[in-house]
């Protein structure tokens, strides 16, 4: 499995390239993109470890592969909603998720958009500081997700992230 902490280290290095002069945009774009992949992998790791026993390690790959970037973004928009939209409120029995999980969801949406600009929009340029901010934001989001380990709302949060609601 991909170690998400290693992705963060990599993103940090890409945001602070060595060499004289201003860093090339290519490095900064890679840093932003890698920072997003960190927040993409962190919930996948949590989902696979929460839902699949260690004895069935190989099965975890199926969970990893089942998650689509666009669907997770759309679900995160709703998970970060305060209060939750009516359908989610009724289905999950919650008015809202705790702040840490809500901020993780909001950061996921923001970083995915930034990744899209970094990888697909030739006109977008980043400052060095913005690239470093993206790495810091990813780190903070992953810490918020990890801090929710014993929170009773983590399983509903991950279940919705993985499966959404049938509409």
């Amino acid at each position, binding site marked *: 499995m991909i170690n998400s902490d290693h992705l963060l280290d990599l993103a940090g290095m890409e945001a602070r390239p060595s060499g004289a002069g*201003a860093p*090339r*945009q290519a490095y900064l774009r890679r840093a932003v993109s890698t920072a997003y992949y960190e927040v993409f992998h962190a919930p996948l790791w949590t989902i696979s470890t929460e839902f699949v026993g260690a004895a069935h390690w190989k099965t975890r790959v199926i969970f990893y592969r089942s998650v689509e970037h*666009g669907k997770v*973004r*759309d679900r995160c*928009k709703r998970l*970060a*909603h*305060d209060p939750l939209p009516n359908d989610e409120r009724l289905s999950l029995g919650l008015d809202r998720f705790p*702040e840490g999980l*809500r*901020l993780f969801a*909001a*950061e996921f*949406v*923001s970083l*995915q*958009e*930034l990744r*899209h*600009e970094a990888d*697909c929009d*030739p006109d977008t*340029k*980043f*400052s*060095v*500081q*913005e690239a470093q*901010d993206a790495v*810091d*934001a990813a780190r*903070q*989001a992953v810490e918020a997700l990890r801090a929710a380990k014993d929170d009773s709302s983590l399983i509903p949060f991950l279940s919705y992230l993985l499966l959404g609601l049938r509409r």
Partner: protein
Amino acid sequence: MVGQELMKAEVVEIVRGLMPSADVVRVDVEPKTDSGGDASLAVRIVTQQRPPREETARLVEVVDKFRTWLIAHDDERFPYFRLLSEDEEREVERADS
């Protein structure tokens, strides 16, 4: 839908509360379509100096508070924020692709 001037004033108010050192010189709020095709907002905050790291780390809270405010005003658009100092804006303008 809330007017852009009201949105800018709300962003300034939220930033003042969460990033007290941020000397905001400009807030731009523009409608945009995000990469998923959803109507959303592009919000750019420009400060005179870059606020300290412990304050810039609160940008996601600014997003959360502003979005909650938008929802309370029946506006479901997700706000995508960029935070830049004036120096960084110049850096970005000069940067090669």
